[in-house]
């Protein structure tokens, strides 16, 4: 039986090798992402479907959230439907590499190794996040520096785990990590008192705290121990497509700067005398055409989802259950670091 098994395994491997050689020999199709989308009539966007406020399925079965809206904006700019594909942290990169999705908009942290090793390009930052700590108020801790020896609940397999180890080592403190596969489980364990501290990106901590039984019992530490710029990715090498996604994001930021909103965009396009607004909305110049899309691409995007501020407020802003302050994600002119290159 042993021998038979080995023979079959050998055959299987040979067949697999044959398949790899056969398919590997076919050159990847030469069509650009934009051409593929146009011929398909649909843009496919990889998103998260279990992150409150950023990517989830609403009661009507529609994808919604902050990351989802940026995909809708790009789709509207091109004038095509957007199809969403829910991806897990594990399969998100290979889904983009293999062409299963055209763009990945799923709270992915921009790091040098991801940018250079994966054959993918980060094209913009839509949300500046950073890792923080949440502790029970009753502990009376004022700063994360007092957390020496604490047990920390966290989700495994993300940059969170690595940042935590770096930070505690840099500060010469000891800690006991308690690892979980899913964010919900980590939170439940923290709530049940299995650990003193819960750590995650600050945006997520805020939403988790609002979901806790008694939100008032928990406090966020002032320290931010990492930089987590989150944004969309495209495949490496298709610069035109990367430009379209990057400048759609920039257009939404610029629109907020210029006071162009979902409600007034049509009227502004007709009446505005501001040359930058005219260039942005395509009433003068040829910015859209040069990029390979229609002149009114930005107008369509804004009309579909609103400007950056509207997307933020609708999904995660202070009026929502998540109640995330703008913080770093405020416009540069209002104290944040959100900055779009000029439309010229």
């Amino acid at each position, binding site marked *: 039986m042993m021998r038979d*098994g080995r023979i079959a395994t050998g055959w299987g491997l040979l067949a697999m090798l044959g398949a790899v050689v056969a398919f590997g020999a076919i050159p990847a199709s030469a069509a650009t992402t934009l051409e593929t989308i146009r011929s398909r009539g649909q843009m496919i966007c990889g998103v998260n*479907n*279990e992150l409150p406020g950023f990517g989830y*399925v609403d*009661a009507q*079965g529609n994808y919604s959230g902050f990351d989802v809206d940026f995909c809708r904006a790009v789709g509207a700019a091109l004038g095509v439907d957007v199809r969403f594909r829910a991806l897990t942290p594990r399969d998100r990169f290979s889904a983009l590499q293999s062409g299963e999705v055209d763009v990945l908009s799923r709270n992915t942290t921009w790091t040098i190794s991801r940018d250079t090793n994966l054959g993918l390009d980060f094209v913009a930052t839509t949300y500046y996040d950073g890792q923080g700590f949440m502790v029970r108020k009753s502990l009376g801790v004022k700063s994360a520096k007092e957390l020496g020896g604490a047990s920390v609940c966290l989700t495994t397999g993300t940059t969170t785990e690595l940042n935590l180890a770096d930070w505690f080592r840099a500060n010469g403190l000891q800690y006991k990590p308690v690892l979980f596969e899913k964010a919900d489980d980590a939170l439940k364990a923290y709530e049940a008192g299995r650990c003193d501290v819960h750590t995650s990106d600050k945006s997520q901590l805020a939403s988790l705290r609002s979901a806790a039984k008694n939100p008032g019992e928990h406090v966020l530490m002032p320290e931010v121990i990492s930089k987590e710029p989150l944004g969309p990715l495209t495949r490496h090498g298709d610069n035109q497509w990367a430009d379209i996604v990057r400048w759609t994001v920039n257009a939404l930021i610029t629109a907020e700067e210029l006071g162009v909103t979902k409600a007034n965009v049509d009227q502004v396009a007709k009446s505005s005398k501001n040359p930058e607004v005219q260039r942005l909305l395509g009433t003068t110049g040829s910015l859209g055409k040069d990029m390979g899309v229609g002149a009114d691409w930005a107008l369509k995007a804004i009309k579909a989802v609103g400007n950056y501020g509207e997307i933020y407020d609708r999904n995660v802003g202070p009026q929502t259950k998540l109640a995330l302050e703008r913080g770093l994600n405020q416009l540069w002119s209002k104290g944040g670091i959100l900055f779009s290159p000029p439309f010229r």
Partner: protein
Amino acid sequence: MTAPVSNPQALAADDAPPRREIGVWGWARRNLFRTWYDTLLTLCFGWLFYRIVAGLIGWGIVQAGFGTTPKACAGSQGACWAFIGDLWPLFFVGAYPHDARWRPALALLLVVALGLLTLWRRTRTRWLLACWLLAPLPILALIGGSATLGLAAVDSGLWGGLMLTLLLAVVGIVFGFPLGVVLALGRRSRLPVIRALSVGYIELIRGVPLITVLFMASIMLPLFFPSGFNPDKVLRAMIGITLFYAAYMAEVVRGGLQGLARGQEEAAAALGLTYWQTTAFIVLPQALRIVIPPMVGTFIALLKDTSLVAIVGLFDLLGIARTATANPNWLGRIVEAYVFAGIIYWVLCFSMSQASRRLELRFQTRAG
């Protein structure tokens, strides 16, 4: 025959055992409070049982919030069933488009109607069998869309919830079972090549976890294909589950084949039946009857294992539970989501084992 008794009630009352020895009280005395340590154990476990049940009822019913809006749960310390009340369609069909939700509902109705007709003896005819065989066509047309019927196509990436769980399980069972029978026969074949292939396949598949097969199917496979050619993700998972469970079913069927007396085959050979005739009319009908209980066990395991597809980005019943709790209106309702999904799984698995018992009984009476 005894002589008639003038007052049977009076006599019965005289002959009856003392009241404290019969009925609930008598049973309790005999089984729960016979000795002092019996009493102690009964009281301890009774108290534990009471605490658990009281806790569950308190959490699930008394203190729970019912309705469909988050307001219904404001201030309640128990479960928030309003969460399920608002989002239950998600649990059944996932991200399926809102205005087309009647289509999977109709498909489900079709299956339930056929199921009820099957339970009723008078309608259990050849026509019903034909209906069952044809049923996949309208069901797939309803769920996936069909140009001829004027139903808009719905991308399989949007299929989810219980609908996806059932589709994966049914496809896995319907295609995995015959494949398993073929593999089991192949493993007992006298032809060395066929035997080697069957044994190799079964041992290879049984040597890896299902999750590996699913990862291969959903992550590795697309990298081998030329870009732009993307076989459907649901189809890939279906193929993965079918191929995986075929190996397990093969081993179950082989157990049945080996449990069959050698004389059956020899008698068939003596009658001049060919290999295929022997297999189809003598061996398989008896072997498959023996393996109904373990086979249904495998089916149930398959149904529950479909929840692993959540890891490769498909959102079955369990996967959609997490999606539902990401709704900002219902943050942190993961326990209610799990309990609800658990109840649905239990109903499905319990009905499967009940159906298996009915089937066993029927075959037993017929065999006897």
